[in-house]
Every structure is written in structure tokens, then in C-alpha cells.
């Protein structure tokens, strides 16, 4: 990733919950344009917290994070504006249950980006078609399966034309038979050159599309490797032990 333009940069990020519990310890990571970085590690290792710091859904106490050069925790940073440029997909979808699928895709475009109703709907229609859910446009989230909801959630984030996408365990809440339909959409995104940070346990996905794998444990970034070396020849004992546990079957 030597000659890529930097999109997300984290430097010596430290974060505590309360006085004593440190969730992130000196985390540094650079994500270049079009790069796909998969973050894995045992539960409680700080992976989700790390991605939530990128759009300041979680505050940090030390270090700096920038998105396309804009400091995330700067005193004068227009946070809503910055967040609008970073798409985020959550484990539990978080579609707005009181809005139709179409409204879910349009609300941010209209109220945040100031697009007209027609523009927003055209964009939403295009994206729903892309994730194969145009027929569901007038339904409410509660009427869709988990896999469909997560595809809508991805489309909602894409509707904002983000410079990068953050995924926080996007398939962890799904029934097994629905995981692939979501991963397919994500793989297609990587092929279009989207910059992505993905927290996931889907090692098949990581092996297929990740440019780099970040392994975290107890709040630290223990190892960063490309997909070949990380899976076949992990450097640290902790990564070896983690991989042996999750790849045992």
C-alpha cells in the first residue's frame, strides 16, 4: 500500500472506559484509498471500538485520527459533516423502523446532503437495484429478513457517497443462510475500489478480499499482515493461537 493516498489514519490512539479500563492501547493504522482492511481478534479485544472511533461514535482520550486529512477529534471539526462522508454498517442493522426502505435510503440524502426528493429517490432506486431489493422499497424494515435488512443498511450508507465504509461485524447477527448474500454485496464493493475497514469473523471473506489483516488482542494491534502471510504464517503466538481456535473446523 506504499503509493496509495491515505484515507484513514490513526496514530497512537488510546481510549479508556472510566478511569482504569483501557480498551485501546497505542493503536496506529493507516488505510489507503481503495484498501480493504479486515480487523479480527477475540471478543473484547477492542475491534468494534476501534472502528467506532473513526467516525467519533466513540471518543478517544489520546492520539489522533484523521479522515482524508480532517482531524476526527478536532475541537473545530464539523462532526456531522465528517460522519456523512464515512459510511457505517452495524451488527444489528439499525435501519429506522418507522420509515420505509425507500425513506431509510433518502432521509440522510435529503436532510444531511440537501438533495432534492427526486435526486435522493433516483440514487436510492439505483442502490436498491444493486443490492437486489428494489421490490421491497415500500416495505418497512420489520417486514424484511435479517440479510435483506443488512443489504439495505449497506445501501443506506452508500447513498451518502462515502469516501470509506466501516463495517462492525456486519454478519454476526445473521442466520447462517443469510451471511453470503451480505458478503456478496461487500465483495462487489471491494471490486469497485471502495475503501473499507471491516470487523468480522468471516475468515473466508478476509482471505478472499482483504489487502491487510489487523489482528487485535486486549486493546492492542498485535499484528498486521497481508492475507497470505497472516493466515499461513502468522508472526505472533497470540495470532497463531487465535487462528488455531477459529480455523479448527
Amino acid at each position, binding site marked *: 500500500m506504499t503509493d496509495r493516498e491515505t484515507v484513514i489514519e490513526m496514530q497512537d490512539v488510546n481510549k479508556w472506559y472510566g478511569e482504569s479500563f483501557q480498551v485501546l492501547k497505542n493503536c496506529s493504522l493507516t488505510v489507503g484509498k481503495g484498501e480493504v482492511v479486515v480487523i479480527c481478534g477475540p471478543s473484547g479485544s477492542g475491534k468494534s471500538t476501534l472502528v467506532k472511533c473513526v467516525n467519533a*461514535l466513540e471518543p478517544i482520550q489520546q492520539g489522533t485520527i484523521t479522515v482524508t486529512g480532517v482531524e476526527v477529534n478536532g475541537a473545530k471539526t464539523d462532526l*456531522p459533516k465528517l460522519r456523512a*462522508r464515512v459510511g457505517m454498517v452495524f451488527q444489528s442493522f*439499525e*435501519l*429506522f423502523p*418507522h420509515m420505509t426502505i425507500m425513506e431509510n435510503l433518502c432521509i*440522510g440524502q435529503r436532510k444531511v446532503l440537501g438533495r432534492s426528493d427526486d435526486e435522493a429517490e433516483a440514487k436510492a432506486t439505483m442502490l436498491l437495484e444493486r443490492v437486489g431489493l428494489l421490490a421491497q422499497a415500500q416495505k*418497512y424494515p*420489520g417486514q424484511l429478513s435479517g440479510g435483506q435488512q443488512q443489504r439495505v443498511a449497506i445501501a443506506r450508507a452508500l447513498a451518502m457517497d462515502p469516501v470509506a465504509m466501516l463495517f462492525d461485524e456486519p454478519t454476526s447477527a445473521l442466520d447462517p443462510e443469510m451471511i453470503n448474500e451480505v458478503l456478496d454485496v461487500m465483495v462487489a464493493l471491494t471490486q469497485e475500489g471502495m475503501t473499507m475497514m471491516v470487523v468480522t469473523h468471516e475468515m473466508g471473506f478476509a482471505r478472499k478480499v482483504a489487502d491487510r489483516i489487523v489482528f487485535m488482542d486486549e486493546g492492542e494491534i498485535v499484528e498486521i499482515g497481508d492475507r497470505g502471510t497472516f493466515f499461513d504464517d502468522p508472526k505472533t503466538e497470540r495470532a497463531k493461537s487465535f487462528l488455531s481456535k477459529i480455523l479448527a473446523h
Partner: protein
Amino acid sequence: MVKGWNWDGFFDYLTNYYLFEGALVTLGLTVFAMTAGLAIGFALALMRMSKHKFISAPAVFYIWVFRGTPLLVQLIIIYTGLPQLGIKFTVLQSVLIGLAMCEGAYLAEILRAGISAVPAGQINAARAIGMKESQVMRYVIAPQALRIVIPPLGNSVNSVLKTTSIASIISMEELLRRTQVLIQERFLVLELFIVAALYYLAMTTIWDLIQRRIEARFGKAYGPMSIDKQ
């Protein structure tokens, strides 16, 4: 001597315009108490949910005082007591102030419960697409909280409709006060108060029907509610 039931008297009162007007006043007081109470209650709920003690503490104090004392006592203090300090209100002003302030305290707690019930993940999702805090409240929290609080709010309307009768104590000419005034004419206590009760019952029943329609409207995104489906 047992007088028995007087049908003529009953129908006279049922069609009495003076009583009917009293019922309209009761209705007006209810609409005002709910509207002003919701405005006060919303402000109090937001204050109470603030992280800053100096913002939340006054709200906590207000709610403690107004929920912890009877409206009857509040009205007498406002109308009869405050003039001692040179603060004078007319009967109508006193009733409007008392109802709004008291109801505001109750509605604050209902609204706070509704707002708290919206999952944190929804707020994160709204922020993540770039909404400002005011937009998060308006487009994501409020509509979902509203659906949750409609049943308890409806309960409040029903309750306020009846509570307005307390205003009769400082001679506010609402339904109960006018009922009491009419007693002097013929002393048909049972017939007269049954008519008053029917007026209250009619108003609460009509509200019940309205509330059901509102609930159906706000629940349309969620399908029929049942307790055996998660």
C-alpha cells in the same frame, strides 16, 4: 319521604345548555392542559436527561414538587395564597397555570421513558449518516418515542379530563362547578350528577376511540402487536 327517580328532571338536565357549556369548558381545559403540559414536559424531560447536574437538577426538583403535591393544594396556593405576596391571577389564569405546570411534571416522566426506550444503536445510526443532534431527535428519536408513549399519553388525556373537575374548588365554571350550581334549583342530586357523569363518560369514550385510531396509525410500520412474537 322517598322521592324516587325523576325522568323529567333527568332529561331536563341532559338537554340543559348551561351544563353543556360546562362540558365544553372542561374539554377546553383538557386540550390546554395537554398542549401546554406536553411543551413543559418535553423541556423537562430533555433537561432531566442532561449529563450536566445544573441542568438536570432543577428538572428533578420541579417534577418532585409538582408530582408530590395534590393539584387541589397547588390551585389554592396559586389562586388564594399568592395574592398575599401581591401576585394575583384570575380564576381562569390560576387554573390554566396550575393544570399546565402539574401536567407538565407527569408528562415529563412519560416522555423521558419514551425517549430512553429508543435503542442507543438507532442514535448511533442516525449520527453515522451525518445528522446533527437536533435532526437525530426530530427524525429518529421523536417518532419512535412517540409511538411508545401514545398509550400512556392517552391515559393522561383521560385522567386530565376528570382532573379538571378539581378546578371547581376555586369556582372555575367547568362541568362539575355548574352541576353544583344547578343543585340549588331542584335538589335532584341523583339525576343531575348522573347527567354530569354521563358527560364525563361520553368525553372519555370518544377519546378512547380517537386514541385507538392514533395507535393504529403510528403502529403501521410494526404490524399487529402480540406478546408471543419477539
